[in-house]
């Protein structure tokens, strides 16, 4: 089977604004943005804490969060599935196979990315930033915020990276979301489903949108690196 015809159909779907396609794109963007918005503040705060404070178990925590980075997302999906399943500890919340479950999964995937990037950015900050802020009268929290402001390009890079990771995530989304049409079907899960059905047009169309998002993310990153003096 040639690729030309399904690609032509994919462009047609995109150009005429196919309702099903738009719904899937919208759901993907919305769930990814919601997850990143919810998990970023606590993850960044934890990253700052792990980078700036010394306490028992701090090194072990950093190693653990770094290890989470390499966990297969399908395993993360499995853990969340077990937690949210009817017999699981959070079963009474009845979140399994809902958009909320996908958001929780995305948050779990984004968490280590955000923490590790933040630790790296804050540890890489010049020690004089914190000291200067403190000496000019800032409180500990105020000085930590000043450090964050100084490494803002690194922090934004963390957020953009985490967003790029979750919007293209498939394993966890299928496990906890169930790939239900109109409810939890997002771009990656729809691509997997349509391809398995032999309907390549929608898969290619969604693939193009995902690639456009990836390209956009890379452009944003490149711009940030320029802004941050990393040219």
């Amino acid at each position: 089977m040639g690729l030309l015809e399904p690609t032509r159909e994919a462009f047609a779907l995109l150009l005429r604004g196919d309702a099903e396609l738009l719904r899937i794109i919208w759901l993907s963007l919305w769930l990814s943005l919601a997850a990143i918005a919810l998990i970023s503040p606590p993850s960044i705060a934890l990253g700052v804490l792990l980078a700036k404070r010394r306490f028992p178990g701090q090194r072990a925590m950093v190693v653990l969060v770094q290890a989470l980075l390499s966990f297969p997302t399908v395993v993360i999906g499995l853990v969340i599935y077990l937690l949210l399943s009817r017999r699981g500890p959070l079963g009474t919340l009845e979140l399994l196979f809902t958009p909320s479950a996908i958001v929780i999964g995305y948050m779990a995937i984004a968490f280590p990315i955000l923490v590790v990037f933040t630790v790296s950015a804050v540890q890489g900050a010049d020690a004089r930033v914190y000291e200067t802020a403190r000496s000019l009268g800032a409180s500990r929290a105020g000085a930590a915020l000043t450090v964050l402001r100084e490494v803002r390009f690194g922090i934004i890079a963390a957020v953009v990276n985490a967003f790029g990771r979750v919007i293209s995530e498939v394993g966890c989304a299928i496990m906890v979301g169930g790939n239900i049409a109109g409810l939890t079907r997002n771009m990656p899960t729809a691509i997997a489903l349509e391809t398995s059905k032999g309907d390549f047009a929608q898969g290619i169309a969604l693939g193009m949108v995902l690639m456009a998002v990836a390209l956009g993310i890379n452009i944003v990153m490149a711009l940030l690196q320029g802004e941050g003096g990393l040219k």
Partner: protein
Amino acid sequence: MSEILFEASGLARQLGGRRVIDGLSLRLERGQGYVMLGDNGSGKTTLLRILAGLEAADAGVLRFQGEQTLLPRYPDAWRWRAVYVHQHPYLFNTSVTGNIAYGLKVRGERGEQWKRKVEEAIDWAGVREVIAVPPQKLSGGERQRVAMARAKVLSPQLLLLDEPTANLDADGRHRTIELLARLCAEGVTVLTACHDREIIELPEVRRFHLEGGKLAPLA
């Protein structure tokens, strides 16, 4: 006799098995300029950082306007009175004005008075011509003057300067010394660690020598 602003006694700090500060005592009078000399590695920076609460001491007592603290505890309120300027000052990645205004914002100052103070500090340090230049692109001398303006704008009771003319070109050095002399003449209590002969010979200052972890006055 002049009023004692700041006192330290029994200061001790060990670094890498060496007693850098060893039972040191210090007494600073209000409105007086001081210069601290000493060889490289004699502990000048360590002492300034302890006095600014940026580095813990192993032992010692500090008194600021009669209020006493037992180190390593350093009251946060003192950070609004004593300001330390690094040998190579860090300027925040904002504007020159943003840097000078930082401490005032921390203190919750806003409005016309805030603007006036920042403008005065800009003129005082002679940095108006570089006000639109990104701080990271300023020369060493300009950075030092912005950092001094950033400290001066807060009207600190004690200003701690660490080698303010180190690695500056002739012009930067000359203008920095000029600012330091003006600070002393304006009655700001300044303690400067330096090797610069021109600073050491400023008529308004008193001189200390740091050796063997202790301070000794110099004639």
